């Protein structure tokens, strides 16, 4: 009944290509996270401190990012903008889509982090003569970073995993590359099985690095 013969050799032959594509995945996910953290922090502060159109904009961003499929967000930057004559490269589409998505999720994490710091911490800092900026930089933000640290790690893992949607907009990251070889050789199962292992290893490495960094960063 079961007559499929596994052929691993072509996969192994392409392993260097797959590893390289894995680096592309890591690169686009990391970049999206860096941008996502900066933008997410800004969105959170806007939602906490401002009123008016800017706040409405930030809230809409967060709502859309969190409540629509990540795939559609990618399609928006691909086919959506394409319909208006703005054609991004596959790399740019994935980077923009991931950044949009990550910024939305991270904004909520940051918001929760800021709300978890009691107002009295700021009062205590100000009573010592610190400026508002000093109080935020020295007292509030370091504590927020601690609170959002593991959520950020999770988001990084998520960014790596959903970057695989990139293959649907023609991006040759790990999944796209796998798809390319798989369709040429028809060894679909073998290729995707190996790629799944590669994703698993990448995620495990991220978690390990995160844990080691946490030991160094947070001693309290």
């Amino acid at each position, binding site marked *: 009944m079961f007559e499929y013969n596994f052929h691993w050799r072509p996969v192994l032959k392409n392993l260097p290509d797959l590893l390289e594509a894995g680096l592309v995945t890591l690169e686009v996910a990391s970049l999206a996270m860096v941008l996502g953290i900066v933008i997410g922090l800004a969105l959170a502060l806007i939602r906490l401190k401002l009123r008016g159109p800017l706040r409405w904009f930030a809230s809409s961003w967060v709502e859309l990012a969190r409540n629509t499929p990540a795939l559609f967000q990618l399609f928006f930057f691909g086919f959506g903008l394409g319909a208006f004559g703005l054609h991004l490269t596959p790399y740019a589409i994935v980077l923009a889509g991931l950044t949009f998505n990550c910024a939305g999720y991270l904004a909520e994490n940051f918001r929760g982090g800021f709300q978890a710091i*009691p107002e*009295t*911490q700021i*009062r*205590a*800092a*100000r*009573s*010592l*003569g*610190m*400026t508002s900026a*000093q109080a935020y930089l*020295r*007292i509030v933000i*370091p*504590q927020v970073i*601690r609170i959002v640290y593991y959520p950020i790690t999770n988001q990084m893992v998520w960014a790596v995993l959903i970057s695989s949607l990139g293959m649907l907009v023609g991006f040759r990251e790990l999944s796209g590359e796998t798809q390319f070889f798989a369709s040429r050789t028809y060894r679909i199962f073998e290729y995707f099985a190996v790629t799944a292992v590669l994703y698993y290893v990448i995620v495990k490495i991220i978690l390990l690095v995160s844990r080691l960094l946490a030991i160094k960063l*947070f*001693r*309290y």
Partner: protein
Amino acid sequence: MIEISDLYKSFGDLQVLKGINLQVEKGEVLSVIGASGSGKSTLLYCINGLEPIQKGSIKVDGVEVHAKDTDLNKLRQKLGMVFQQWNSFPHLTVLENVALAPRIVRKLPKRDARDVALKQLEHVGLGDKIESYPGALSGGQQQRLAIARALAMEPEYMLFDEATSALDPELVGEVLDTMRLLAEEGMTMICVTHEMGFARDVSDRVAFFHEGLIEEIGPPKQIFGDARSERTKKFLSKIR
């Protein structure tokens, strides 16, 4: 000298301070007592400019606290403040908690900031805890840390807002002893407190707050032994 005249403060529609007149001389220890909600904390926050005021004036050594051109960050270095919730900075070691503001506000070199911090931590009896994080300290130790942190700015006045109210009973003593020590060293202090023993023994004067006004102010002997106001008597009889 702290001079408060005709001070009004409200939060929205809620009138909290309704015309406070008060002078605190250099070297004086003033205890402020009164029911919860009578505006005692608010008064302290107004004195160091953490809360804006609606009317009247507060002068610290002749400087108008709430004037537009007053450098509040500079003024606050003169006015150490200790809160009910001790507010230690949990992400910093005990030493860093105390050394941070001297370094970034007083702009002392790192070494000097460290020396100042060490001196004040010894002062409050925490010299052996400098590498600990506040989370590892008891409430009493954290409150003494907060006192050391304020003292490291070398303030001329100390404002205590119910410094012992949030502590377990067995930890109150060590904090009161530290406050007593400061009083003996001649620090000018305004202490909002529910510790009547402390108010009686340590203060030069006691002010009884009632609904946003100073109902009665005088030496402890008067307030505790021979109060003029019925409200003062009633408050004290309820507390004992």
